[in-house]
Protein backbone atom coordinates (compact mmCIF):
# COMPACT_ATOMS: atom_id res chain seq x y z
CA UNK A 1 0.00 0.00 0.00
CA UNK A 2 1.64 3.22 -1.04
CA UNK A 3 0.85 6.91 -0.85
CA UNK A 4 -1.28 8.38 -3.64
CA UNK A 5 1.60 10.21 -5.39
CA UNK A 6 3.78 7.09 -5.38
CA UNK A 7 1.02 4.90 -6.79
CA UNK A 8 -0.01 7.39 -9.47
CA UNK A 9 3.48 8.27 -10.62
CA UNK A 10 4.36 4.83 -11.91
CA UNK A 11 0.98 3.81 -13.37
CA UNK A 12 2.37 3.74 -16.94
CA UNK A 13 5.12 1.36 -15.81
CA UNK A 14 3.06 -1.00 -13.67
CA UNK A 15 -0.30 -0.85 -15.46
CA UNK A 16 0.84 -0.47 -19.06
CA UNK A 17 4.26 -2.16 -18.81
CA UNK A 18 6.11 0.86 -20.13
CA UNK A 19 9.83 0.46 -19.54
CA UNK A 20 12.90 1.81 -21.30
CA UNK A 21 15.09 0.43 -24.04
CA UNK A 22 18.67 1.47 -24.75
CA UNK A 23 18.98 2.75 -28.31
CA UNK A 24 22.70 1.96 -28.27
CA UNK A 25 22.75 -1.71 -27.20
CA UNK A 26 19.06 -2.65 -27.13
CA UNK A 27 19.02 -3.69 -23.47
CA UNK A 28 15.59 -3.37 -21.89
CA UNK A 29 15.37 -1.58 -18.58
CA UNK A 30 12.40 -2.55 -16.46
CA UNK A 31 12.14 -1.16 -13.88
CA UNK A 32 13.33 1.97 -15.67
CA UNK A 33 16.82 3.34 -15.09
CA UNK A 34 18.59 6.61 -15.76
CA UNK A 35 21.46 4.96 -17.63
CA UNK A 36 21.70 1.61 -19.36
CA UNK A 37 22.86 -1.09 -16.96
CA UNK A 38 24.78 -2.84 -19.71
CA UNK A 39 26.52 -0.05 -21.66
CA UNK A 40 25.98 3.05 -19.53
CA UNK A 41 24.30 5.03 -22.32
CA UNK A 42 21.92 7.92 -21.55
CA UNK A 43 19.96 7.27 -24.70
CA UNK A 44 16.94 5.35 -23.40
CA UNK A 45 13.49 5.49 -25.01
CA UNK A 46 10.09 4.38 -23.75
CA UNK A 47 9.47 0.76 -24.64
CA UNK A 48 6.31 -1.28 -24.21
CA UNK A 49 7.09 -4.71 -22.78
CA UNK A 50 5.37 -7.78 -24.26
CA UNK A 51 2.46 -9.16 -22.22
CA UNK A 52 3.11 -12.89 -22.61
CA UNK A 53 5.80 -15.10 -21.14
CA UNK A 54 6.69 -18.13 -19.04
CA UNK A 55 7.13 -18.69 -15.33
CA UNK A 56 10.83 -18.81 -14.35
CA UNK A 57 10.32 -19.32 -10.63
CA UNK A 58 7.55 -18.73 -8.11
CA UNK A 59 6.66 -18.94 -4.44
CA UNK A 60 3.40 -19.28 -2.49
CA UNK A 61 3.11 -16.49 0.06
CA UNK A 62 1.43 -17.70 3.24
CA UNK A 63 2.79 -15.18 5.71
CA UNK A 64 2.14 -11.86 4.02
CA UNK A 65 3.33 -8.32 4.65
CA UNK A 66 0.90 -5.75 6.03
CA UNK A 67 -2.00 -5.01 3.71
CA UNK A 68 -2.04 -8.42 2.07
CA UNK A 69 -3.40 -10.50 4.93
CA UNK A 70 -6.77 -11.22 3.31
CA UNK A 71 -5.27 -12.30 0.00
CA UNK A 72 -3.30 -15.32 1.23
CA UNK A 73 -2.33 -17.69 -0.15
CA UNK A 74 -1.11 -15.85 -3.24
CA UNK A 75 1.61 -16.56 -5.75
CA UNK A 76 4.56 -14.34 -6.51
CA UNK A 77 6.80 -15.16 -9.43
CA UNK A 78 9.43 -14.12 -11.90
CA UNK A 79 8.10 -14.29 -15.47
CA UNK A 80 10.34 -14.25 -18.54
CA UNK A 81 8.56 -12.23 -21.22
CA UNK A 82 8.66 -13.01 -24.94
CA UNK A 83 11.52 -10.52 -25.41
CA UNK A 84 13.66 -12.11 -22.68
CA UNK A 85 12.97 -9.49 -20.01
CA UNK A 86 12.26 -10.83 -16.53
CA UNK A 87 9.56 -9.23 -14.38
CA UNK A 88 8.52 -9.86 -10.77
CA UNK A 89 4.73 -10.15 -10.61
CA UNK A 90 1.85 -11.86 -8.88
CA UNK A 91 0.44 -14.90 -10.64
CA UNK A 92 -3.33 -15.09 -10.37
CA UNK A 93 -6.42 -17.05 -11.51
CA UNK A 94 -4.74 -20.33 -10.63
CA UNK A 95 -4.58 -22.61 -7.60
CA UNK A 96 -1.13 -22.13 -6.00
CA UNK A 97 -0.50 -25.89 -6.20
CA UNK A 98 -1.03 -25.83 -9.96
CA UNK A 99 1.64 -23.26 -10.80
CA UNK A 100 4.57 -24.80 -12.66
CA UNK A 101 7.96 -23.48 -13.70
CA UNK A 102 7.75 -23.02 -17.46
CA UNK A 103 3.97 -22.43 -17.49
CA UNK A 104 2.87 -20.01 -20.26
CA UNK A 105 1.24 -16.91 -18.78
CA UNK A 106 -0.29 -13.64 -19.97
CA UNK A 107 -0.75 -10.21 -18.41
CA UNK A 108 -4.05 -9.09 -16.89
CA UNK A 109 -5.04 -5.86 -15.15
CA UNK A 110 -5.96 -6.64 -11.56
CA UNK A 111 -6.33 -5.18 -8.07
CA UNK A 112 -3.15 -5.44 -6.02
CA UNK A 113 -4.38 -4.00 -2.75
CA UNK A 114 -6.62 -1.39 -1.23
CA UNK A 115 -6.20 1.02 1.62
CA UNK A 116 -9.03 -0.28 3.83
CA UNK A 117 -12.51 0.74 2.74
CA UNK A 118 -11.78 4.48 2.68
CA UNK A 119 -8.45 4.72 0.85
CA UNK A 120 -7.59 4.21 -2.81
CA UNK A 121 -7.49 0.94 -4.72
CA UNK A 122 -4.17 0.03 -6.33
CA UNK A 123 -4.09 -1.83 -9.65
CA UNK A 124 -1.29 -3.28 -11.78
CA UNK A 125 -0.61 -6.00 -14.31
CA UNK A 126 -0.48 -9.52 -12.93
CA UNK A 127 -0.10 -12.75 -14.90
CA UNK A 128 -2.48 -15.69 -15.31
CA UNK A 129 -2.18 -19.02 -17.14
CA UNK A 130 -2.64 -18.25 -20.86
CA UNK A 131 -6.13 -18.93 -22.13
Amino acid sequence: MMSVPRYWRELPERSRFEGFRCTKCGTVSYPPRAKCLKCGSDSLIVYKLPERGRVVTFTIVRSPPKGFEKMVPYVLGVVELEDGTNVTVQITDVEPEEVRIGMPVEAVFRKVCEDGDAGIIEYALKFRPSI
Partner: protein
Amino acid sequence: MRKVAILSVGMTKVDKHWRSSLRELFSEAAKRAMNGSNVPKIDALIVGNMCASDLSDQNNIGALLADHLGIVPSTAYRIEAACASGAAAVLAAYGAVSSGMHDFVITGGVEKLTDGVGGNTTLSLGKAADAEYELFYGSSFVSLNALLMNHYMNFYHVPRETFADLAVLMHKNGARNPYAQLPFEITRETVLNSDMISDPISLYDCAPVGDGAAALILCPLDEAKKYSDTFVEISGIAGATDTINLSSRSDLLTLRSIVVAAEKAYRMAGITPADIDVAEIHDTFTITGALSIEDLGLCEKGKFGKMLASGAFSEGGKVVINPSGGLKSRGHPVGATGAYQIAEVAMQLSDKAGKWQVKDAEIGVAQNIGGSGSSTFVTVLRRSR
Protein backbone atom coordinates in the same frame (compact mmCIF):
# COMPACT_ATOMS: atom_id res chain seq x y z
CA MET B 1 46.78 4.20 3.19
CA ARG B 2 47.45 2.70 6.62
CA LYS B 3 46.72 -0.90 7.49
CA VAL B 4 43.96 -1.35 10.03
CA ALA B 5 43.56 -3.61 13.05
CA ILE B 6 40.62 -4.71 15.14
CA LEU B 7 41.79 -4.13 18.70
CA SER B 8 38.90 -5.70 20.53
CA VAL B 9 35.29 -6.67 20.14
CA GLY B 10 32.18 -6.89 22.27
CA MET B 11 28.70 -8.23 21.69
CA THR B 12 25.43 -8.89 23.47
CA LYS B 13 23.59 -12.17 23.35
CA VAL B 14 21.09 -12.11 20.52
CA ASP B 15 17.65 -12.34 22.08
CA LYS B 16 14.29 -10.63 22.39
CA HIS B 17 15.70 -7.94 24.66
CA TRP B 18 12.42 -6.49 25.94
CA ARG B 19 14.19 -4.62 28.74
CA SER B 20 16.95 -3.03 26.65
CA SER B 21 16.50 -0.09 24.35
CA LEU B 22 18.47 0.63 21.20
CA ARG B 23 20.96 2.85 23.01
CA GLU B 24 21.35 0.54 26.00
CA LEU B 25 21.99 -2.47 23.82
CA PHE B 26 24.72 -0.80 21.81
CA SER B 27 26.38 0.60 24.90
CA GLU B 28 26.47 -2.87 26.42
CA ALA B 29 28.39 -4.19 23.41
CA ALA B 30 30.54 -1.07 23.11
CA LYS B 31 31.59 -1.16 26.77
CA ARG B 32 32.68 -4.78 26.41
CA ALA B 33 34.79 -3.81 23.42
CA MET B 34 36.24 -0.81 25.23
CA ASN B 35 37.12 -2.95 28.22
CA GLY B 36 39.05 -5.29 25.94
CA SER B 37 41.65 -2.69 25.04
CA ASN B 38 42.93 0.54 26.52
CA VAL B 39 42.52 3.14 23.82
CA PRO B 40 43.17 6.74 24.88
CA LYS B 41 40.14 8.17 23.10
CA ILE B 42 37.40 7.47 20.58
CA ASP B 43 37.57 9.74 17.54
CA ALA B 44 34.46 8.48 15.82
CA LEU B 45 31.49 6.20 16.14
CA ILE B 46 30.26 4.67 12.87
CA VAL B 47 27.38 2.30 13.41
CA GLY B 48 25.08 0.19 11.26
CA ASN B 49 21.32 -0.05 11.75
CA MET B 50 18.41 -0.81 9.43
CA CYS B 51 15.06 -0.55 11.16
CA ALA B 52 15.25 1.96 14.03
CA SER B 53 13.54 4.64 12.01
CA ASP B 54 10.49 2.42 11.41
CA LEU B 55 10.33 0.44 14.64
CA SER B 56 11.73 2.74 17.31
CA ASP B 57 10.84 6.05 15.65
CA GLN B 58 14.51 6.95 15.92
CA ASN B 59 16.76 8.54 13.33
CA ASN B 60 20.08 10.28 14.06
CA ILE B 61 21.41 7.08 15.64
CA GLY B 62 25.05 8.20 15.51
CA ALA B 63 24.43 11.14 17.80
CA LEU B 64 22.11 9.10 20.03
CA LEU B 65 24.69 6.39 20.67
CA ALA B 66 27.59 8.80 21.05
CA ASP B 67 25.55 10.60 23.70
CA HIS B 68 24.62 7.44 25.59
CA LEU B 69 28.16 6.13 25.50
CA GLY B 70 29.46 9.43 26.81
CA ILE B 71 31.80 10.11 23.90
CA VAL B 72 30.47 13.42 22.66
CA PRO B 73 31.93 15.47 20.95
CA SER B 74 33.33 12.64 18.76
CA THR B 75 32.20 12.31 15.14
CA ALA B 76 29.27 9.97 14.81
CA TYR B 77 26.96 8.74 12.05
CA ARG B 78 24.92 5.77 10.95
CA ILE B 79 25.49 3.63 7.91
CA GLU B 80 22.58 1.85 6.27
CA ALA B 81 22.80 -0.94 3.70
CA ALA B 82 19.80 -3.04 4.74
CA CYS B 83 20.99 -6.27 6.44
CA ALA B 84 24.56 -5.42 5.42
CA SER B 85 24.57 -2.24 7.50
CA GLY B 86 26.93 -3.81 10.04
CA ALA B 87 29.67 -4.75 7.60
CA ALA B 88 29.14 -1.55 5.62
CA ALA B 89 29.73 0.41 8.83
CA VAL B 90 32.96 -1.51 9.41
CA LEU B 91 33.99 -0.73 5.83
CA ALA B 92 33.34 2.97 6.42
CA ALA B 93 35.28 2.81 9.69
CA TYR B 94 38.12 1.00 7.92
CA GLY B 95 38.27 3.78 5.35
CA ALA B 96 38.29 6.43 8.07
CA VAL B 97 41.23 4.83 9.89
CA SER B 98 43.10 3.75 6.78
CA SER B 99 43.00 7.24 5.30
CA GLY B 100 44.32 8.81 8.43
CA MET B 101 41.13 10.73 9.06
CA HIS B 102 40.61 9.07 12.45
CA ASP B 103 42.84 6.94 14.73
CA PHE B 104 40.40 5.21 17.07
CA VAL B 105 36.99 4.34 15.79
CA ILE B 106 34.28 2.36 17.45
CA THR B 107 32.14 0.62 14.86
CA GLY B 108 29.54 -2.10 14.72
CA GLY B 109 25.79 -2.41 14.56
CA VAL B 110 22.66 -2.50 16.66
CA GLU B 111 19.11 -3.62 15.97
CA LYS B 112 15.88 -3.69 17.98
CA LEU B 113 13.51 -5.74 15.83
CA THR B 114 11.25 -6.45 18.79
CA ASP B 115 10.35 -2.77 19.07
CA GLY B 116 8.07 -3.44 16.11
CA VAL B 117 4.44 -4.46 16.54
CA GLY B 118 1.97 -6.41 14.44
CA GLY B 119 3.66 -6.94 11.11
CA ASN B 120 5.66 -3.71 11.23
CA THR B 121 8.88 -5.67 11.65
CA THR B 122 8.28 -7.75 8.52
CA LEU B 123 7.27 -4.62 6.64
CA SER B 124 10.40 -2.78 7.73
CA LEU B 125 12.68 -5.70 6.85
CA GLY B 126 11.04 -5.87 3.44
CA LYS B 127 12.19 -2.36 2.64
CA ALA B 128 15.54 -3.75 1.52
CA ALA B 129 13.75 -4.66 -1.70
CA ASP B 130 12.57 -2.43 -4.55
CA ALA B 131 9.59 -0.63 -3.02
CA GLU B 132 7.89 0.37 -6.28
CA TYR B 133 8.42 -2.86 -8.21
CA GLU B 134 8.76 -5.65 -5.64
CA LEU B 135 7.10 -4.64 -2.35
CA PHE B 136 4.17 -3.14 -4.27
CA TYR B 137 3.11 -6.66 -5.28
CA GLY B 138 3.04 -7.98 -1.72
CA SER B 139 6.50 -9.50 -1.71
CA SER B 140 8.62 -9.61 1.41
CA PHE B 141 12.12 -10.57 2.28
CA VAL B 142 11.10 -14.21 2.67
CA SER B 143 9.15 -14.50 -0.55
CA LEU B 144 11.92 -12.96 -2.67
CA ASN B 145 14.42 -15.46 -1.30
CA ALA B 146 11.86 -18.22 -1.82
CA LEU B 147 11.95 -17.35 -5.54
CA LEU B 148 15.70 -17.99 -5.47
CA MET B 149 15.27 -21.26 -3.55
CA ASN B 150 12.61 -22.67 -5.87
CA HIS B 151 14.73 -21.77 -8.89
CA TYR B 152 17.86 -23.39 -7.41
CA MET B 153 16.00 -26.54 -6.35
CA ASN B 154 14.46 -26.90 -9.79
CA PHE B 155 17.70 -26.27 -11.70
CA TYR B 156 20.09 -28.38 -9.62
CA HIS B 157 17.51 -30.97 -8.52
CA VAL B 158 18.29 -30.37 -4.86
CA PRO B 159 15.52 -31.31 -2.40
CA ARG B 160 14.47 -29.49 0.76
CA GLU B 161 16.31 -32.10 2.84
CA THR B 162 19.68 -30.80 1.66
CA PHE B 163 18.83 -27.29 2.79
CA ALA B 164 17.53 -28.64 6.08
CA ASP B 165 20.93 -30.21 6.73
CA LEU B 166 22.52 -26.76 6.62
CA ALA B 167 20.13 -25.52 9.30
CA VAL B 168 20.98 -28.60 11.38
CA LEU B 169 24.72 -27.79 11.18
CA MET B 170 24.08 -24.19 12.15
CA HIS B 171 22.21 -25.24 15.27
CA LYS B 172 24.85 -27.82 16.14
CA ASN B 173 27.43 -25.02 16.15
CA GLY B 174 25.22 -22.44 17.82
CA ALA B 175 24.41 -24.78 20.69
CA ARG B 176 27.92 -24.05 22.06
CA ASN B 177 27.72 -20.28 21.67
CA PRO B 178 26.46 -18.33 24.72
CA TYR B 179 25.70 -15.34 22.50
CA ALA B 180 23.34 -17.37 20.29
CA GLN B 181 19.60 -16.71 20.27
CA LEU B 182 18.70 -20.35 19.60
CA PRO B 183 21.44 -22.40 21.28
CA PHE B 184 19.92 -25.86 20.77
CA GLU B 185 20.33 -28.67 18.31
CA ILE B 186 17.63 -29.58 15.81
CA THR B 187 17.02 -32.42 13.39
CA ARG B 188 16.20 -32.57 9.72
CA GLU B 189 12.59 -33.32 10.67
CA THR B 190 12.37 -30.12 12.71
CA VAL B 191 12.96 -28.22 9.49
CA LEU B 192 10.86 -30.37 7.17
CA ASN B 193 7.87 -30.40 9.53
CA SER B 194 7.89 -26.68 10.25
CA ASP B 195 5.19 -24.41 8.76
CA MET B 196 5.64 -23.04 5.27
CA ILE B 197 6.18 -19.28 5.29
CA SER B 198 6.56 -18.83 1.54
CA ASP B 199 6.95 -22.11 -0.28
CA PRO B 200 9.53 -23.63 -0.34
CA ILE B 201 10.91 -21.69 2.65
CA SER B 202 9.61 -23.05 5.95
CA LEU B 203 9.96 -21.55 9.42
CA TYR B 204 13.14 -23.50 10.18
CA ASP B 205 14.77 -22.39 6.96
CA CYS B 206 14.68 -18.86 8.37
CA ALA B 207 16.87 -16.98 10.82
CA PRO B 208 14.88 -15.92 13.91
CA VAL B 209 13.81 -12.37 14.76
CA GLY B 210 15.80 -10.85 17.58
CA ASP B 211 17.72 -7.90 18.99
CA GLY B 212 21.43 -7.49 19.41
CA ALA B 213 24.49 -5.29 19.18
CA ALA B 214 28.12 -5.93 18.33
CA ALA B 215 30.97 -3.44 18.52
CA LEU B 216 34.55 -3.40 17.31
CA ILE B 217 37.37 -0.95 18.02
CA LEU B 218 39.57 -0.16 15.04
CA CYS B 219 42.98 1.53 15.01
CA PRO B 220 46.05 1.70 12.76
CA LEU B 221 47.74 -1.74 12.64
CA ASP B 222 51.15 -0.24 13.46
CA GLU B 223 49.89 1.08 16.78
CA ALA B 224 47.74 -1.88 17.76
CA LYS B 225 50.15 -3.61 20.10
CA LYS B 226 50.25 -0.54 22.31
CA TYR B 227 46.62 -1.03 23.17
CA SER B 228 45.94 -4.74 23.04
CA ASP B 229 47.69 -8.12 23.09
CA THR B 230 45.11 -9.83 20.94
CA PHE B 231 44.46 -7.62 17.95
CA VAL B 232 43.66 -8.96 14.50
CA GLU B 233 44.49 -7.51 11.08
CA ILE B 234 41.88 -6.53 8.52
CA SER B 235 43.77 -7.73 5.45
CA GLY B 236 40.99 -7.32 2.93
CA ILE B 237 37.63 -5.57 2.83
CA ALA B 238 35.31 -4.74 -0.07
CA GLY B 239 31.72 -4.23 -1.08
CA ALA B 240 29.85 -4.79 -4.33
CA THR B 241 26.33 -4.40 -5.66
CA ASP B 242 23.97 -6.21 -7.98
CA THR B 243 20.56 -4.98 -9.15
CA ILE B 244 18.16 -4.30 -6.31
CA ASN B 245 15.30 -5.86 -8.25
CA LEU B 246 15.61 -9.66 -8.43
CA SER B 247 14.15 -9.81 -11.90
CA SER B 248 16.86 -7.53 -13.28
CA ARG B 249 19.62 -9.95 -12.28
CA SER B 250 21.55 -11.57 -15.10
CA ASP B 251 21.56 -14.95 -13.33
CA LEU B 252 19.16 -16.04 -10.62
CA LEU B 253 21.39 -18.93 -9.54
CA THR B 254 24.27 -16.69 -8.47
CA LEU B 255 24.45 -13.68 -6.19
CA ARG B 256 26.95 -11.71 -8.22
CA SER B 257 27.47 -9.13 -5.49
CA ILE B 258 29.05 -11.89 -3.39
CA VAL B 259 31.31 -13.02 -6.24
CA VAL B 260 32.55 -9.50 -6.98
CA ALA B 261 32.97 -8.40 -3.35
CA ALA B 262 34.86 -11.62 -2.57
CA GLU B 263 37.16 -11.21 -5.56
CA LYS B 264 38.01 -7.68 -4.53
CA ALA B 265 38.56 -8.56 -0.86
CA TYR B 266 40.59 -11.69 -1.62
CA ARG B 267 42.79 -9.74 -4.03
CA MET B 268 43.39 -7.05 -1.45
CA ALA B 269 44.28 -9.68 1.17
CA GLY B 270 46.38 -11.69 -1.27
CA ILE B 271 44.44 -14.92 -0.68
CA THR B 272 42.40 -17.50 -2.54
CA PRO B 273 39.36 -19.36 -1.16
CA ALA B 274 41.57 -22.35 -0.41
CA ASP B 275 43.42 -20.28 2.20
CA ILE B 276 40.33 -19.63 4.27
CA ASP B 277 40.15 -21.53 7.57
CA VAL B 278 36.95 -20.15 9.00
CA ALA B 279 34.03 -18.26 7.43
CA GLU B 280 31.06 -16.49 8.95
CA ILE B 281 28.60 -16.47 6.04
CA HIS B 282 25.20 -14.88 5.62
CA ASP B 283 22.55 -17.58 6.05
CA THR B 284 19.38 -15.52 6.57
CA PHE B 285 17.65 -18.46 4.92
CA THR B 286 19.14 -21.82 4.07
CA ILE B 287 19.12 -20.82 0.38
CA THR B 288 21.08 -17.66 1.16
CA GLY B 289 23.57 -19.77 3.08
CA ALA B 290 23.91 -22.16 0.15
CA LEU B 291 24.45 -19.38 -2.37
CA SER B 292 26.88 -17.62 -0.02
CA ILE B 293 29.06 -20.70 0.33
CA GLU B 294 29.12 -21.27 -3.42
CA ASP B 295 29.54 -17.66 -4.50
CA LEU B 296 32.38 -17.08 -2.02
CA GLY B 297 34.20 -19.75 -4.01
CA LEU B 298 34.15 -22.25 -1.15
CA CYS B 299 32.62 -24.89 -3.41
CA GLU B 300 31.34 -25.35 -6.98
CA LYS B 301 27.91 -24.07 -8.04
CA GLY B 302 25.17 -26.54 -7.25
CA LYS B 303 27.41 -28.59 -4.98
CA PHE B 304 26.98 -27.10 -1.51
CA GLY B 305 24.82 -30.03 -0.41
CA LYS B 306 27.33 -32.63 -1.46
CA MET B 307 30.15 -30.82 0.27
CA LEU B 308 28.08 -30.30 3.39
CA ALA B 309 27.31 -34.00 3.57
CA SER B 310 31.01 -34.86 3.23
CA GLY B 311 31.89 -32.84 6.34
CA ALA B 312 33.83 -30.25 4.35
CA PHE B 313 32.29 -27.39 6.33
CA SER B 314 32.92 -28.72 9.82
CA GLU B 315 36.02 -28.89 11.97
CA GLY B 316 38.58 -31.06 10.22
CA GLY B 317 37.08 -30.36 6.82
CA LYS B 318 37.90 -27.80 4.15
CA VAL B 319 36.68 -24.65 5.93
CA VAL B 320 34.65 -24.27 9.11
CA ILE B 321 31.42 -22.49 8.24
CA ASN B 322 29.64 -20.44 10.90
CA PRO B 323 31.15 -21.89 14.06
CA SER B 324 29.05 -19.26 15.85
CA GLY B 325 25.84 -20.88 14.63
CA GLY B 326 25.39 -18.35 11.85
CA LEU B 327 22.30 -16.25 11.33
CA LYS B 328 20.13 -19.32 11.76
CA SER B 329 21.13 -20.18 15.31
CA ARG B 330 23.18 -17.23 16.55
CA GLY B 331 20.51 -14.92 15.23
CA HIS B 332 20.11 -12.07 12.80
CA PRO B 333 19.61 -8.65 14.35
CA VAL B 334 19.85 -7.29 10.84
CA GLY B 335 21.81 -4.06 11.07
CA ALA B 336 24.14 -5.62 13.63
CA THR B 337 24.71 -8.97 11.95
CA GLY B 338 27.63 -7.88 9.80
CA ALA B 339 29.40 -6.62 12.91
CA TYR B 340 28.67 -9.89 14.75
CA GLN B 341 30.20 -11.84 11.87
CA ILE B 342 33.40 -9.80 11.77
CA ALA B 343 33.66 -9.84 15.56
CA GLU B 344 33.21 -13.63 15.58
CA VAL B 345 36.01 -14.10 13.05
CA ALA B 346 38.22 -11.75 15.08
CA MET B 347 37.54 -13.86 18.17
CA GLN B 348 38.42 -17.02 16.27
CA LEU B 349 41.73 -15.53 15.11
CA SER B 350 42.65 -14.38 18.62
CA ASP B 351 41.61 -17.60 20.38
CA LYS B 352 38.77 -15.93 22.25
CA ALA B 353 35.94 -18.13 20.98
CA GLY B 354 35.57 -20.33 24.03
CA LYS B 355 33.62 -23.55 23.49
CA TRP B 356 33.17 -22.86 19.78
CA GLN B 357 36.81 -22.11 19.04
CA VAL B 358 38.15 -23.40 15.74
CA LYS B 359 41.68 -24.74 16.14
CA ASP B 360 44.58 -22.87 14.59
CA ALA B 361 42.54 -20.54 12.38
CA GLU B 362 44.89 -18.15 10.56
CA ILE B 363 42.67 -16.57 7.94
CA GLY B 364 38.99 -15.89 8.33
CA VAL B 365 36.29 -14.33 6.20
CA ALA B 366 33.04 -12.63 7.11
CA GLN B 367 30.39 -12.14 4.45
CA ASN B 368 27.31 -9.92 4.89
CA ILE B 369 24.48 -9.51 2.35
CA GLY B 370 22.06 -6.61 2.00
CA GLY B 371 18.62 -7.23 0.50
CA SER B 372 18.14 -10.23 -1.76
CA GLY B 373 21.76 -9.95 -2.89
CA SER B 374 21.72 -6.31 -3.95
CA SER B 375 24.92 -5.75 -1.99
CA THR B 376 27.54 -7.81 -0.24
CA PHE B 377 30.47 -6.84 1.96
CA VAL B 378 33.32 -9.28 2.43
CA THR B 379 35.94 -8.83 5.14
CA VAL B 380 39.15 -10.89 5.36
CA LEU B 381 40.95 -11.04 8.69
CA ARG B 382 44.40 -12.39 9.39
CA ARG B 383 45.79 -13.58 12.72
CA SER B 384 48.49 -11.15 13.82
CA ARG B 385 51.91 -12.38 14.69
